[in-house]
């Protein structure tokens, strides 16, 4: 398994395989699968972002969803001001980066669980502020986003006519591409000088400091960059569902992301992707397959799965090779 995944062409092949999902869904007349794929893709994007702070540098963040919210609301507000969608998305990502950098400068000298609580507090502050600033965000009633069909032009290609009207398929392709690029960016960073510095900080901050790594600056870099993925995910979410409300950015979403990164394997790209696929996809598959009588048990089962997975794979589903080597030595 590990050897297969670490093959040089594995990412590109997996990406190509993922692109066939809408066609499979169409062939078996079950278009819901495309939606599931897109939702899971957004989870992957978010988890790759959190992986950068939590997985690479070990900064425990319990309020990551706030930057998903910034991306979503930023896009929604700009779209209402008639900014073209791609520009709105870019600006929203920039806003998420800027806010994250500002937060990082302020709080990154806190350690461990103090950081976790402060980020949790920030996440709640963000959600409540969106809910309370009615003049800007329309408060609990939420904001509508005008429709955007990014890949309608694909409909001109013979055999792809159905794509023109299917926003699910268009956003699925877009999200899949974003996930591929994010994973590729993560991989390159991981193997760069920066990535090695991050791991050094995670393993022993004092030692890293002593060996001349500018710890504060590298921490801030990881902390800030991770918001790019969250902001992008939020932006795609707002454009896809065309509606944002504070209810979508609750504390539970942040904890779920932490669970994905820890269960997938902290610092392991393939692990985090697999974690997002399972924890993001299982509730949806249960929704589709459980009988009406069992549908209420969905989250009970989900809790059980969470506990069993931690007990059977405490080191993560696909732990990063580097971490596993450390643990076994």
């Amino acid at each position, binding site marked *: *398994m590990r050897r297969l995944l670490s093959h040089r062409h594995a990412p590109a092949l997996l990406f190509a395989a993922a692109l066939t999902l809408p066609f499979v869904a169409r062939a*078996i*007349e*079950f*278009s*819901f*699968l495309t*939606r*599931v794929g897109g*939702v899971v893709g957004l989870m992957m994007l978010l988890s790759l972002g959190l992986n950068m702070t939590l997985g690479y540098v070990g900064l425990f963040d319990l309020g990551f969803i706030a930057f998903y919210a910034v991306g979503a609301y930023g896009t929604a507000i700009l779209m209402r001001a008639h900014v073209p969608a791609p520009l709105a998305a870019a600006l929203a990502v920039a806003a998420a980066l800027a806010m994250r950098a500002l937060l990082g400068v302020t709080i990154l000298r806190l350690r461990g669980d103090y950081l976790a609580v402060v980020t949790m507090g920030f996440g709640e502050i963000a959600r*409540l502020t969106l*809910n*309370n600033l009615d003049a800007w965000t329309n*408060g*609990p*009633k*939420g904001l*509508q986003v*005008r*429709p955007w069909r990014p890949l309608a032009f694909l409909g001109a290609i013979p055999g792809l006519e159905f794509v023109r*009207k299917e*926003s*699910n398929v268009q956003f699925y392709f877009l999200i899949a591409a974003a996930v591929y690029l994010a994973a590729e960016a993560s991989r390159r960073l991981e193997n760069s000088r920066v990535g090695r510095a991050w791991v050094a900080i995670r393993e022993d901050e004092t030692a890293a400091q002593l060996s001349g790594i500018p710890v504060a600056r590298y921490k801030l870099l990881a902390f800030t960059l991770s918001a790019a993925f969250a902001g992008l995910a939020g932006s795609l*979410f707002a454009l896809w*569902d*065309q*509606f944002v*409300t504070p*209810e*979508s950015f*609750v504390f539970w979403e942040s904890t779920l992301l932490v669970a994905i990164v820890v269960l997938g394997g902290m610092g392991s790209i393939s692990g985090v992707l697999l974690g997002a696929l*399972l924890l993001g*996809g299982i509730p*949806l*598959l249960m*929704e*589709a*397959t459980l009988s*009406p009588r069992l*549908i*209420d048990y*969905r*989250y009970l089962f989900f809790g059980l799965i969470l506990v069993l997975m931690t007990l059977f794979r405490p080191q993560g589903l696909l732990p990063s090779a580097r971490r596993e080597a450390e643990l076994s030595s």
Partner: protein
Amino acid sequence: MRARTLAAAGAWILAAALSACGPRDHSVIIAVAAPLTGDTGAEGQGIKRAVIMAVEEANASHRFPYHIEAKPFDDRADPKEAVNVANLIISDPRIVAVVGHYTSGCSIPAAKVYARAPIAMISPGATTPEVTLQQTSPDWIGPRVVFRDVATDDVQGAAAARFVYSRLGLRRMALVHDKTPYGQGIAEQFQKTFQELGGTVTSFDGISIGDRDFKALLTKIKDDSSRPQGIYFGGLYTEAGLILVQMRELGMKKNLAFVSDDGAQSPVLYEIAGDAADGAYLTTIGVPVEQLPSARDFLARYKKRWTGASEDIKPFDHFGYEAANIVLDALAKSGPDREKLLAVLPTIRHKGILGETVFDDKGDTLNKIVTMTRAHAKDRSFPTVK
């Protein structure tokens, strides 16, 4: 070992996915999309029970030559989940219409998915005007598919304000709402109407759902130098009950009236507030139950059908039951076909437990009769204020 586990998991997922689109029987399905788990699970479960009951009654009456089924879908009151569920619903060709969603936040984005199918949805709980209004926007893609049998925020808030001003003769009211689209919307309308009538709104505060301690806010209202004569609360029975209990604890119940909306009108109010609920004024939509035998029958049947410990009737069950019956009426006219059913719905005149429901061209109900009731803790009832 690892590879085998993964393969097994993969096989299960594949099997699950295939079974979801495998062979299908031929019954006709009405989807119920509501929060079945999570913080608002109780309300969604209530709506589900009401729809199941309506469908069971239809099957028992042999009005239809085929079997009808109510199939529940869980949106957890999360807009993203609502869109997921909507996509699942439109994937199943046996589903002819949707009763749902419960919250406005879920109804707004889910409606866009239903318009793609297209398939009709009747919301039993989404009160924000935007839910149906969005269909008139130039950005709307597809036909109009959204209907609702609940009145919008403005109806109840305005009626309550008129009642407080003219019948109770109060001039200064403190407003509290739960910071949800429903509670805040109703409170805003109350404020507007009450001020137009010449009343004064002494304060306007939001609380957060999940909090249980509102004593600080209530103390502020109690000692407010502009001396409010009552509290109007926009929100649901849980917070309404907590406020009533704490008003009594702070010695405010004697001097201040408590007025709220139909979201507060549930027997569960008495679980939470006990005797402290006594005397609370609550608006409801529709003519007084006493004048409408069908509504009284409904309550009796509901109690007979659902006898579980937590199966008390919830505030929006009437609307769920009525929405299901409207779908059934339309189904009888159109036959089991999504698009035909959607075309028939605007022509339906349904006489049921809410009185007569007819939809206007946006899809909103024209039934805007509001009745004032008063909580009577001794027998846990809500008699009409004459």
